[in-house]
Every structure is written in structure tokens, then in C-alpha cells.
């Protein structure tokens, strides 16, 4: 009798614990949303204390894909160039600007590597170390998720080597990059791009110590003591899941510029905890989520930064309703972006009626790309024009009601933004019903990819410092188009700009392309450009934040108390 009751209790507890652990799984939403939380610390000594929101997935320069890894790599490794304070490439491992030579429509850059470029074990950084890492990134057996960067940089055969079916597929030795001697690296570019040198600051183009890496085999770069460093800092400690510590690298060629002796980084996922750590002086810089902004808005240590990351809605133009330009225009104009950025986001994000972000890249004339249309498109139109367009659209469709599905992800902020959009659209456009379809991130991508949505929320950050990193998305066959948008005029401008070598003309073509996308076709509904709210102690100086690639550089940071 008793035994059977215990069995019952036991099974109940079992069931309950399974149930509870299942619930526990649901409570985590963010995932790796990028390295928003930084912090630092310090005393009179040159020590900085920071936090990150995610651990480092990989320190193998050919394998990393995420912000945290790229940021960490930027502190401990160095390519031919590195990004400076103004996001311009400044000399890194390269001793000088390269010699350039034109040959049969190709350009050959000859780089000389610094004599004092050393790995942290004192051995020389040689040209072969670059070639070794690059071949590894392109080799089908060890292929890098960022292998396409070689083609993006215009390096000869970069695209062919990773294109299955191409006669050059997998033939890494055909890459237009050669080690002429120990300190001379020759790069052949078949398609010149103005951001070539900036791209060389990206992790995929870093060198790897060939001999050492081969010796370590599978263990290479898995732990602090199974890699070598050639950047301003080295990893003194790397406790996976907990954090990592940088120390100044005495072998670094420019060690005298580096002020910091030590940087500690802990992985903290909870923003409230980050704020509490900041308030008790344990960290020197903290990223804030919207709910903390009001609390700190008037604090002297509070500031906001604008990211070149854009958020927008894809309108699936294979749907009859959304193929109608008036309907798209109505959606575009009905959405109140100010309410979104000031109330919901509240973190310095900018309301956007444009697609290529502000403060991202400057043209040949030295002006920001956005200068040609600073406030975006249809900037002076609003609710009234939205209603007019809506009526016209309904008439053309011959209906008085439209139902649309709004596809979004299941994280907390995305859900709020979706509710906001639903409210905006439904209250301003009579006869419109929006159904929100919330999906986990991976499922969201599958649905979006297969065109199974009417409206979907999207975000895009740059992969290289050029408007093209945004504009190429919506070419007719673009991998990321995903919404059936097709415009001959747009395609012509974008592919023209890809080939154009005259900078001023190319710039104009890209601006025209944006105009077609946004003004003529209203193909998407841009919503905001991302802002970040941060707290930073006053004594942290020269904390440089970058607009692409690694988020920030610690090389020049100084603690002044």
C-alpha cells in the first residue's frame, strides 16, 4: 500500500521535474545577440574590467562568425592593417603601404611585413603565415563561414575556389596571394574595390603561425596556451564560460603605444547584473537595455552610440496585396518610427526612412553616403498620405479588407516591436488585419527563406565598409532578397556599381539604386538604425568603437584617474 503511494509520488516528482526543466529551457530568449554589454574597470593602474554577453565561440581566425570572437581577436591578433580611431585602416603587420603594379587588368600589391612583427613566442611573423591561414579558410575541408570575403576583397580566384563545379574549386594554391620571400607578400586583385585595405583588417585575413598551428593540430587556438598572438595583447587566461583576461603583449611591434597592462572580461548575460556590477565599480563599461535607460539618462557616464545596423520589414511581393505599390506605400507611411525609437527602444536608435545607414561610410567627396537624402525618402509625408495610398490600393485590389501575416522572432524585444507594428498598421489603415507569427530564430530563418510570410522583420549589419554590403541584398537573384522583389533598373545600377572603377560614378549609382529601392518601388519598410546605450567611467579614455568587423579596439585605451 505504502510502496505504491511512494511510487506515485516518485513518478509525480519525475514528471514535475521534467516539466520544470522544460520550462526552464523556454525562459532564455536572447541567444547570442551580439556583444552589447561591455564594461571595464580600473584603478590608478592600467587595468580595465569589462563584461561580454556571450562567451568566445572560437579563436581560430578562419572559423569565427560572431561579434565576441571578432572583438577578442582584434585585441590579440593583427592583420596587414588594423582599424584606427576613425575606422580607417592603419598599418599593422605591414611595414609600409604596398607597391602597386597594374598587369593585364589585374593589380598586384606587394606588401612588406615589418621586421619587428613577432608572434608572442618571439618568432617572426612571415608572409607564409598569411598564406597558410588564407588557404585554410578556403580549403573545402576546413572552409571558413567567411570564405566569401576573399572574393569580396576582389582577390584573384577568391570566388572561383569556393564555387562548387568551378574548375578551380578547392584549388587553394590558385588564390592570388603568394609569399615571395619571408617578409614579402604579394596579393593579386582581379576586381578592384575601394575598401580593399579596410577588409584586410578583418579576422579572416589575419595570419596564423604555420609551424606552431600544425604542431598543435586539433588543439590549435582552443585554449589560451595553444595559440600564439601577434596583436597588442595576449590571453593570460581563458576560462571558458566564465571569462578571459588580456595582458599586454611585450613582443608586439607597437608595444610602446599600448597603455593597458591588463583587461579582464567576464561573461554576464543578465543586464541587471551588469548594471549592479557597474554600480559597485567592478566593471568600467556597461551596455544597457531599454528598461535601464530612464534610470541612467541623466547620468554623466551615460551615452549612446549609433551602429550601422539597419532594421526593416521585408514585404513579400509575391503576395497580391503587397505587389501593389500603394499598399506598400501605405504601410511605409503609416508606421510611426518616432514612437518606436523614443518609447520602445529608448537607446539612441534613429528613426529611419532609409536603408543605407548614417555615419557608416564616406564617399569620394568626403561626405557621408546619406548626405544626398539625409532624412530618407518620403520624409515629409505621414498618416494622411498613408490613408490616401491605402484607399487607392484597396480600390485597385477591389476589396475593402486585407489580412497580412507578420513574421517575427520570439525574443522579447522583437515581440514588442511586432505588437507595436500591428497596432500602428491596424489603427491607421482601415480594413487591415495583422496576424503576428512568432517563431524561434532558426525557424524564422527557414520560413523567411522559403518565402512563407507576408511581412517579416529583418536586421542587417555590414560585412565590409561600403554601401554595397546593404544594396546587393535586393538584387533579383540576391541570396538575401527573400521577398520576390525584382527591378531591372535596380539590378542594373547595383551590378553596374559593382564593376564601376570611377569612385564618384560608383557612388552616384549606389545612391540612385537606393532611390529606386526606396522611393520608386518602396520595396521595404525601414524602421530604425540601431543605437546602443552605454555607461562608461570617465577615467577610461580612447575607447574606440568600430563600424564594421570587430566592435572595438583596446590598443589605445588609457586609464586616467
Amino acid at each position, binding site marked *: 500500500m505504502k*510502496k505504491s503511494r*511512494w511510487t506515485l*509520488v*516518485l513518478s509525480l*516528482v519525475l514528471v*514535475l*521535474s521534467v516539466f*520544470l*526543466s522544460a520550462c*526552464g*529551457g523556454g*525562459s*532564455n530568449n536572447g*541567444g*547570442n545577440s551580439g556583444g552589447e554589454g561591455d564594461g571595464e574597470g580600473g584603478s590608478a593602474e592600467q587595468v580595465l574590467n569589462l563584461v561580454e554577453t556571450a*562567451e568566445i*565561440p*572560437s*579563436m*581560430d581566425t578562419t572559423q*569565427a*562568425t*560572431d561579434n565576441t570572437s571578432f572583438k577578442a581577436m582584434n585585441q590579440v591578433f593583427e592583420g596587414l592593417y588594423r582599424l584606427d580611431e576613425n575606422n580607417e585602416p592603419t598599418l599593422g603587420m605591414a611595414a609600409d603601404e604596398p607597391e602597386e603594379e597594374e598587369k593585364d587588368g589585374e593589380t598586384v600589391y606587394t606588401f612588406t611585413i615589418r621586421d619587428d612583427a613577432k608572434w608572442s613566442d618571439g618568432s617572426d611573423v612571415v608572409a607564409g603565415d598569411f598564406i597558410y591561414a588564407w588557404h585554410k579558410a578556403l580549403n*573545402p*575541408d*576546413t*572552409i571558413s*563561414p567567411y*570564405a*566569401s570575403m576573399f572574393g569580396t576583397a576582389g582577390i584573384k580566384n577568391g570566388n572561383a575556389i*569556393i564555387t*562548387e563545379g568551378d574548375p578551380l574549386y578547392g584549388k587553394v594554391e590558385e588564390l592570388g596571394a603568394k609569399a615571395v620571400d619571408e617578409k614579402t607578400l604579394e596579393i593579386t586583385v582581379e576586381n578592384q574595390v575601394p575598401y580593399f585595405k579596410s577588409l584586410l583588417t578583418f579576422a579572416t585575413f589575419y595570419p596564423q603561425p604555420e609551424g606552431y598551428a600544425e604542431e598543435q593540430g*586539433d588543439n590549435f*587556438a*582552443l585554449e589560451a596556451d595553444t595559440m600564439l598572438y601577434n596583436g597588442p595583447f595576449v590571453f593570460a587566461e581563458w*576560462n*571558458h*564560460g*566564465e571569462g578571459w583576461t588580456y595582458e599586454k603583449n611585450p613582443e608586439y611591434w607597437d608595444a610602446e603605444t599600448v597603455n593597458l597592462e591588463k583587461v579582464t572580461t*567576464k*561573461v*554576464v*548575460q*543578465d543586464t*541587471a*547584473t551588469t548594471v*549592479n*556590477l557597474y*554600480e*559597485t565599480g*567592478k566593471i568600467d563599461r556597461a551596455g544597457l537595455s531599454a528598461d535601464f535607460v530612464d534610470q541612467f539618462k541623466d547620468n554623466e557616464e551615460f551615452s549612446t552610440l549609433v551602429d550601422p545596423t539597419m532594421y526593416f520589414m521585408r514585404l513579400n511581393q509575391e503576395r497580391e496585396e503587397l505587389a501593389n505599390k500603394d499598399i506598400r506605400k501605405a504601410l511605409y507611411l503609416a508606421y510611426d518610427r518616432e514612437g518606436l525609437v523614443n518609447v520602445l527602444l529608448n537607446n539612441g536608435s534613429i528613426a529611419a526612412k532609409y536603408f543605407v545607414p548614417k555615419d557608416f561610410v564616406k564617399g569620394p567627396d568626403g561626405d557621408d553616403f546619406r548626405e544626398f537624402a539625409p532624412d530618407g525618402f518620403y520624409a515629409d509625408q505621414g498618416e494622411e498620405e498613408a490613408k490616401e495610398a491605402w484607399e487607392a490600393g484597396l480600390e485597385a485590389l477591389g476589396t475593402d479588407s486585407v489580412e497580412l501575416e507578420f513574421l517575427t522572432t520570439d525574443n522579447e524585444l522583437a515581440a514588442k516591436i511586432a505588437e507595436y507594428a500591428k497596432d500602428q498598421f491596424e489603427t491607421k489603415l482601415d480594413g487591415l488585419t495583422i496576424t503576428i507569427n512568432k517563431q*524561434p*530564430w*532558426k*525557424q524564422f*530563418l*527557414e520560413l523567411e527563406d522559403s518565402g512563407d510570410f507576408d511581412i517579416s522583420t529583418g536586421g542587417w549589419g555590414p*560585412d565590409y565598409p561600403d554601401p554595397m554590403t546593404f544594396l546587393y541584398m535586393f538584387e533579383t537573384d540576391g*541570396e*538575401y532578397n527573400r521577398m520576390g522583389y525584382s527591378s531591372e533598373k535596380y539590378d542594373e545600377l547595383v551590378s553596374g556599381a559593382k564593376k564601376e572603377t570611377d569612385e564618384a560614378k560608383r557612388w552616384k549609382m549606389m545612391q540612385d539604386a537606393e532611390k529606386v529601392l526606396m522611393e520608386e518601388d518602396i520595396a521595404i519598410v525601414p524602421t530604425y538604425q540601431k543605437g546602443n546605450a552605454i555607461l562608461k567611467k570617465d577615467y577610461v579614455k580612447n575607447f574606440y568603437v568600430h563600424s564594421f568587423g570587430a566592435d572595438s579596439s583596446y590598443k589605445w585605451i588609457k586609464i586616467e584617474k
Partner: protein
Amino acid sequence: MGRYIGGRIISMLITFLIIASLTFFLMKLLPGTPFNNQDKLTETQIVQLNDKYGLNDPVPVQYFNYMKNLLSGDLGVSFQQDGREVSTIIGERIGPSAYLGLQSLVVGTIIGLFLGIIAALKHNSFLDYGTMVIAVLGISIPNFVIAGLMQYWFGVKWQLLPVAYWDGFAYTIMPTVAIASIVVATIARFMRTEMLEVLGQDYITTAKAKGLSSTAVVIRHTIRNASIPIITIMGPLVVGLMTGTLVIEQIFVIPGLGEKFVNSILTNDFPIIMGTTLFFSILFIVVILLVDILYGIIDPRIRLAGGKS
């Protein structure tokens, strides 16, 4: 007894294999890829990367390969943490979770038993009601609320305890209290109920009639007998606590296993999902066996070998 344990071990192995297989196939139903820049990968790149990780093989082939490696003790390498061994990752994460779990368990059990016993002995008194209010609060207030409040008051306002991190005993106090709250509440309620039931048994009346002091009755007869069912809930409690509580780990920045488990599912890190699930299952299966064996030892009325009860 020996035969019983032998039989149990065989059924444990079967359970384990079933869990491994089920988890494997269910996991394969998860949408998406394990690559965290999936939104920027082209179709071709996804195919190439899948090739590299052997994810293009038919699922049964992948299953066969996985089980083969598993039986030879190889849990594979993480996709998210580029090439690190799953066993290494579990190994470095289990320490803090286990420490914190056991510490909370011990603290929570002692306080819980104490409160439960007091409540039962002073049945329907102010103490009884007070204890039960604490128990209900402990169960119904989520522990992350308790954790957040403690962190703010003890950590930031009064600066008595470190806000977060994992760096010595002082750092374990707040997380322990937060986790122990639910243990206290569970055990106190359970103990009270059991005590009350035992106190009404004939043998207690007999013991009293024999002239035993009430202290002796409580200690030798009541508590001992009332404790037996506690063992039942201790099993799952031990496993639940040892394997980490995700939210508490996040709030106090403890490098434990809970976070790894949840994130592996969110990021489709297949080898980690398998590794952690199997690790938890083994722990669970073993603890349940231990609990069953303990019953037989503590309460002779339960005959594990079956037959003549």
C-alpha cells in the same frame, strides 16, 4: 539484493539507450543549422559547412556513427565552441553547478526539516502558520525574484556581499540562499505532513503509553519514520540542483552547466545537446537506483527483491 541490482543495471542501460536514441532523433527535428551566422550564409555555404561536420549524411547514418562513438566513450566536439571536446566542456562546467547544488541542498534540507518538524509539533499554532506561510512564499516566489532583490540590497545598496562572479565562499552565499528557498519550502511542507501523519499512528500512542518522554517519542519514532518519504523527493531534488539552475547561474554569473544546456538547444549545438542530456539522464537514473536501494535499507517493510511482501 545482488540479483535485484543486476537486473536494475540492465534496465538502466536499456533506458539510457532509449533516451540517447530519442534525443538524437528529436534533436534532428530542430529547424535551422548549428552555424550562428546562418542569416548571412548562402545555400552553398551551408551545404559546404554541413559537409565539413558530417551533417549531410542521412540521419540513420549519423545516428549509427554517433552511437558507435558514444559506446566507445567519445561524445564528440562542440560546433559552437569550435572543436572543443564535449566531455571537457561538461567537465569544466559541472564543478560550480554541483558545488552550489549540494550546498543549497544541505542548507535547504536542514532548515526545511527544522521548520517542518516545528510546524508539526506546534500544529495549528502561530509557529505552524508562520512556517507554512514561509513555505508557500518559498514555492510561489520565483527564485530569480529573490535573487534580484538580494543582489540589489546586499550587493549594491549595503555592499555586504559581492554582486556576482564565482570567486570564493562569499560569492556562493546569495545564490545558495536563492536556490535553497525552494528546497526549504518543499522539504518543510513535506516533513510537516509526514510528521502529522506519523503522530497519529498507533505506535506513537503505544510509545507514549509505555511512558517514553515526548522528546524521545519525537526523535526515536516520529522524525525517523517521517523522514523516509523525504528520501523520495531528495533524489530528483539532488539531480535538479546539481545540474544547475539556469536563471540563478545567469544572475550571479556562475559558470555552470545550466546555461550550456539551454544555449546548446537554442544554437543547435548537437553534440552538446546530446552530451548534456545523456549526462543528466545518467545522473538521474543512478540517483533513482540509489534511492530505491536506500528504501530497502531504511525501511525493512520494502523488499526490493520482490516476492513476499
